[in-house]
């Protein structure tokens, strides 16, 4: 073999060997799919779309949101976990991924994903009708403690939903049984808020942004949020810790993730890009306008958050008698 041919061969071989590295370094080179397990127009869909548009601006390739609904989130979450780990199919995972497996509805857990960034967390609030006699959450809590089991009625979402678990966790933190307050299931926060305004419930535990319109209409008020800090969009609402010295917090969170075994270069690129998205004024304005909680964690932090959420939600579910495994 002549020298030139050998050099050419070596050169080509080196180039071929380097191609994956080059491709990764340049990721993304084509459009990226972002799967959303929830319906178009909903909260998760809205957050993912704003993230997608900001990522597109940041990384230069189209980021398309595709709604993969069904099975109360299972279908979309399963699709994200089963996607090819080349970094071109990612998605948004939500708190349900830490709840569904406890009910035996899926084998998927947070361990089936590569976390990339926690982008939002909505803590539950405690809302009462505006004619309610309870002016603060301590008064409400005292009344609950004094009531007989099942006398008080609360709602906010369906049976076993995240806000139901919030109630169970709050009652547990107060030393009460998880079912001391009777949970009335509803088809989401909006019907629950309507029933609250119509006088059919004692209080609700859905998030404040979900209650916002009715609160602003003067038909309800929010007594506290179960969060470590006050919400930036609703600074007048105290936290549980401030209002009654009970340190309980939880939330419906949303984050971007991909399947397992993604190339490390892609993970670090996304990690950094999501941080830039979170810090951007567009993102902050969007979430603040909606009242969604501006909470961020990078890839590693998201991983830790997932583990902690899985454990605490599992505890709440077992206490509420909802866990099957």
């Amino acid at each position, binding site marked *: 073999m002549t020298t030139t041919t050998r050099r050419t061969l070596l050169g080509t071989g080196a180039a071929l060997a380097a191609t994956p590295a080059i491709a990764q370094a340049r990721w993304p080179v084509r459009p990226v*799919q972002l799967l959303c397990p929830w319906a178009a127009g909903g909260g998760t869909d809205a957050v993912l779309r704003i993230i997608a548009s900001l990522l597109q601006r940041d990384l230069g390739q189209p980021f398309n949101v*595709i709604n993969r609904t069904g099975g109360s989130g299972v279908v979309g979450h399963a699709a994200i976990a089963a996607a090819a780990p080349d970094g071109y199919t990612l998605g948004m995972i939500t708190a349900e991924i830490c709840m569904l497996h406890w009910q035996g509805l899926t084998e998927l857990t947070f361990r089936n994903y590569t976390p990339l960034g926690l982008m939002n967390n909505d803590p539950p609030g405690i809302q009462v009708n505006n004619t309610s006699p309870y002016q603060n959450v301590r008064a409400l809590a005292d009344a609950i403690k004094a009531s007989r089991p*099942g006398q008080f009625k609360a709602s906010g979402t369906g*049976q076993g939903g995240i806000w139901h678990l919030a109630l169970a966790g709050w009652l547990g933190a107060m030393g009460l049984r998880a*079912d001391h307050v*009777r949970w009335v299931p509803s088809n989401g926060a909006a019907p629950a808020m309507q029933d609250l305004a119509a006088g059919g419930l004692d209080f609700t535990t859905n998030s404040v942004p979900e209650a916002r319109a009715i609160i602003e209409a003067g038909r309800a008020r929010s007594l506290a949020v179960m969060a470590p800090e006050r919400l930036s969009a609703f600074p007048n609402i105290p936290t549980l810790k401030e209002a009654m010295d009970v340190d309980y917090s939880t939330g419906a969170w949303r984050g971007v993730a991909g399947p397992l075994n993604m190339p490390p270069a892609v993970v670090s690129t996304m990690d950094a890009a999501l941080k830039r998205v979170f810090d951007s004024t567009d993102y902050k304005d969007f979430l603040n306008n909606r009242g969604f909680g501006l909470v961020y964690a990078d890839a590693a932090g998201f991983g830790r958050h997932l583990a902690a959420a899985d454990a605490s939600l599992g505890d709440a579910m077992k206490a*509420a*008698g909802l866990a099957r495994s």
Partner: protein
Amino acid sequence: MQLSDRITGAVLVSLGAAAAWGGSRLPPVPGQDVGPAAFPLAIGFGLVACGVLIALGIGRGFEAPQEEGPTHSWLSSLRVLVPPLLLFFYALASEALGFLLTAAVMVFVAAIALGARPGSAAILALSTPPLVHLAFYKLLSVPLPAGLLPAPW
């Protein structure tokens, strides 16, 4: 596929019984006295009652007389399975074959089954899938699978 009222009534009775049985096996939920079993049970009983009444021919007086179509041979009656089978085909094959191919096959087979001439069927099968693809993929961002024959746009 006109079945006698006895048969449809019997089907309803068995369906209702199955629903009631399946429902009764659902575990109750803490905090709810009316559990998930209640509705299936109630509906099941209702279906059984309706099935019995229908099998006995009650209420038939209200019915408009059914137009009798020409009787078909068994083989040609199987033609009615073509649309659902084509839909199953779409559901199972579209990811692998891609939208354009699957759609073309669907349209062609359906047209032939409905009695179209092979020529017209072929023209339809070649022209409609690209139009539908254009409208849904380009305009509405619906992720139609590319498969073996990706669209040029």
